[in-house]
């Protein structure tokens, strides 16, 4: 029993300390950061955050990121819903191969796609728009959403569909009015994971735009001469907050989403 | 083998119970004989599973002691108690073969391999599992899995008692009979004390020699199926056991006469003066009422007559009080009125639900 608590406590500390260190640095002045190692900010300052919230080059990064993440989440779930329904309810020509092919796209390395995406999205005139990133992220988020939703839908007995048709519901009305509320937790879980993977991705976002996402602005800052550690830390902290908020709201569904074993 | 004593045993899931409803199990003292086949019968939430888990040691009671053969085991861990338990949902170790499943409790206790094999063979024979010993437990049907769970209990030669927690819930109906019969046979052959929890009266009455009826955290009667039928100690036992259940009618009693809905009915004996504050009821089973069209007895309205195949049940009303009566095939009860006569020897008087014995 004691070793169990010890392992858990140790692991949770291991999770939290690096994040604490980032938060700690974000409230320090650069002078304090570089002069000595302090466990908490001795000259507490909000200056780093002020810079981010007043400089459009910084805060627009967040706006853009949230834009494409939101677009991608909506697109992925909206497209995945009917497809997942088809996979969970019917057999059709090539269904198994199609499913596997979709999954392989979840697994494909983004690095492989970086260059052709650059060409493709330039060719169709979407280069440097949030929509480009939103569409590009669909390549791994749609398969994921289909996979998660299919799991939830298979848990809904088919008799429900049949009863609804007998009661005179048309397919779209049945789907929206009856079926979607039934799998609401599944939609939540799928949206959560789409949000997560779109939010954390850097490579495609950086390739498809001229420094539009916040992550790419940060890497640019980081590689520029004369590290502004405090500013970088503050920017990092601000990227963690949306994720932390989302986790807090879905905390009761996390275990269930994972329980399907489909992430 | 063991005799089980429950000494002032009670359990509450919260500390310092004050109201009766705080108790999951009201304090009780009972002795369960060695080698008996007991059934714990009662509706959901009556505390029967709590009692079972206290005996097996999965739950520690908040008061009282549990004794096996006079030895206090209340604080003893589950694995040290020589108890086996079969659960509602079959528990088998999926990755192991049937033989390994049966051997598991013995190997865990460090028994030598030759002895393990002998025991496993014996138990497999008793349960008709010999042909399946080498199969993986994973693909088996639910009833086979339950047999393996039972086998894991029987395999330990020194097992004091085997507890069953609604073991037939997930078994197909046609397999239930077979498995129950086999269970009873194994009980008789092995002589192990078995305690069987169920909410199904047929299961309880066919399996057990003694049925323990529980109601709202209380043991209301322990008796043979016949005793439960003929002399229910509590009105709950009366209508929970039997189909249809006992008729319970509000009554007043004076000496050897009961008054029900204004009708005077003779009783088999004279009663002492009953507590004036108590709720007095008279109970009689539908089997012990005779119904006839002719005009002696108590007049009732016939509402409907149901035919069960072996006999008919007349649903009647005595001045608005619904009663059930078992009528023989040839009895004429076509009209809307009929007359009842009660067998005085079978009529019981209850005060606040409990049988009045003196």
């Amino acid at each position, binding site marked *: 029993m004691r070793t*169990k608590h010890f*392992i*858990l406590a140790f692991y949770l500390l291991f999770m939290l*300390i*690096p*994040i604490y*260190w980032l938060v700690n640095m974000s409230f320090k002045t650069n002078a304090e950061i*570089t002069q000595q*190692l302090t466990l908490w900010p001795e000259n507490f300052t909000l200056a780093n955050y002020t810079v981010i919230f007043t400089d459009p080059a910084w805060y627009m990064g967040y706006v853009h990121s949230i834009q494409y993440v939101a677009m991608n989440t909506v697109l992925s779930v909206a*497209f995945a819903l*009917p*497809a997942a329904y088809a996979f969970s*309810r*019917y*057999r*059709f*020509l090539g269904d198994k191969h199609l499913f*596997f092919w*979709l999954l*392989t*796209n979840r697994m*494909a390395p983004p*690095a*492989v796609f*970086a*260059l*052709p995406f650059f060409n493709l999205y330039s060719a169709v005139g979407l280069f440097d728009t949030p929509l480009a990133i939103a569409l590009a992220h*669909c*390549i791994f988020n*749609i398969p994921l959403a289909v996979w998660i939703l299919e799991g939830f839908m298979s848990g809904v007995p088919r008799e429900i569909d049949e009863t609804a048709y007998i009661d005179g519901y048309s397919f779209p009305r049945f789907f929206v009015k009856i079926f979607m509320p039934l799998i609401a937790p599944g939609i939540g879980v799928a949206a959560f994971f789409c949000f*997560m993977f779109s939010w954390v*991705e*850097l*490579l495609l976002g950086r*390739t498809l735009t001229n420094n539009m996402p916040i*992550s790419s602005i*940060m*890497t640019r800052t*980081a590689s520029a001469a004369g590290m502004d550690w405090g500013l970088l*830390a503050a920017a990092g902290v601000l*990227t*963690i907050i949306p*994720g932390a908020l989302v*986790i807090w709201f879905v*905390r009761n569904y996390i*275990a269930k989403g*994972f*329980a399907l*074993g489909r*992430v | 083998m063991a005799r089980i004593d429950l000494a002032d045993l009670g359990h509450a899931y919260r500390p310092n119970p004050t109201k009766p409803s705080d108790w999951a199990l009201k304090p009780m003292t009972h002795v369960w004989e060695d080698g008996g086949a007991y059934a714990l019968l009662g509706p959901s939430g009556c505390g029967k599973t709590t009692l079972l888990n206290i005996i097996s040691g*999965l739950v520690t009671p908040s008061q009282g002691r549990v004794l096996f053969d006079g030895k206090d085991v209340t604080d003893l861990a*589950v*694995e040290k108690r020589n*108890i086996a*338990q079969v659960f509602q949902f079959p528990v088998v170790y999926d990755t192991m073969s049937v033989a390994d499943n049966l051997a598991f*409790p013995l190997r*865990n206790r460090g028994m030598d391999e030759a002895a393990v094999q002998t025991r496993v063979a014996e138990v497999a024979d008793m349960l008709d599992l010999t042909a399946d010993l080498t199969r993986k437990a994973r693909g088996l049907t639910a009833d086979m899995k339950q047999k393996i*769970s039972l086998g*894991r*209990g029987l395999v330990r030669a020194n097992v004091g008692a085997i507890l069953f927690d609604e073991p037939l819930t997930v078994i197909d109906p046609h397999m239930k009979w077979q498995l129950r019969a086999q269970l009873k046979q194994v009980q008789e052959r092995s002589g192990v004390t078995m305690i069987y929890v169920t909410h199904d009266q047929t299961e309880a009455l066919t399996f057990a020699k003694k049925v323990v009826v529980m109601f709202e955290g209380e043991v209301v009667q322990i008796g043979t199926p016949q005793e439960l039928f003929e002399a229910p100690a509590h009105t709950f036992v009366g209508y929970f056991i039997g189909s249809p259940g006992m008729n319970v009618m509000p009554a007043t009693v004076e000496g050897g006469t009961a008054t029900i809905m204004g009708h005077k009915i003779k009783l088999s004996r004279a009663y002492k003066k009953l507590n004036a504050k108590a709720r007095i009821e008279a109970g009689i089973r539908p089997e012990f009422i005779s119904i006839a069209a002719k005009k002696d007895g108590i007049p009732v309205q016939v509402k409907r007559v149901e035919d069960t195949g072996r006999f008919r049940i007349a649903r009647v009303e005595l001045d608005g009080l619904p009663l059930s009566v078992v009528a023989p095939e040839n009895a004429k009860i076509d009209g809307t009125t009929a007359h009842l006569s009660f067998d005085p020897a079978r009529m019981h008087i209850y005060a606040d639900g409990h049988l009045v014995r003196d």
Partner: protein
Amino acid sequence: MDKPINNRAWFLVLPVFIIVAFNAILPLMTVVNYSVQDTFGNNEFFWNGIGWFTELLDPSTDLGGRFFDSLGRNFMFSGIILAIQVPLGILVSLAMPKKGWGVAACLVIMALPLLVPWNVVGTIWQIFARGDIGLLGYIVNAMGLNYNYTQDVLSAWITIIVMDVWHWTSLIALLCYAGLKSIPDAYYQAARIDGASRWAVFRTIELPKLRRVLLIGVLLRFMDSFMIYTEPFVVTGGGPGNSTTGLSIDLVKLALGQFDLGRAAAMSIVYNLIILTTCWIFYTVMVNVDAERKS
């Protein structure tokens, strides 16, 4: 419970098919196209057959040597992090509370690293592991150990491995936790009655139930670690030297840094084939496990 055959279901799948095909097939065609051509610039291409592939797969050439080095490093990295994360994840999931307020707290804290943007994961560790301003680097150096991930190969490897363990172990732990929660209490009670030791409970009850989630966990961790790009890119930039350069970093350098289209395309295809094969093996095993469980 056989599903009815209905080819009209294709209409429901079509939108997904189109958008994924747009993203997957068109680029892949471009890549295949590049991989068999050479260019002298000015958008003039000519046929090069399998030239790039033979160069890539021959370890004695510059490109081949570089490719196999990166591939080797990738396999080593994936091997090490799986060997750490899988046992650690199982251990943590076993240590997690089963009910009460602690569950939500554990879930939230553990899921946190998963939602940190990957470059910020890099940033966190870049800062945390530095000898001058990072707590970890400072403590390790104070203990008298020589630790500097920008110059020392071993330090760099340890840093990216610890970082990956920090980042992803929770995924395995959460998967296993969900798997463990699906085991009914009766199994544990039966095991206690059968006198099973803690280890026997783990081996006979918990591990078999975790088989499927572990398979998925290993698959995801293998794939993601095999194409890891952002985190080492931020922390070490692939260095010191090329010591932490994996296939993804190498490929991006080749494609977007040097615009060496033919070589990069050939590398992309081989890289993708490796991933595809692994993925297919896992998928087949998984389908078999599922089928076995249903029987």
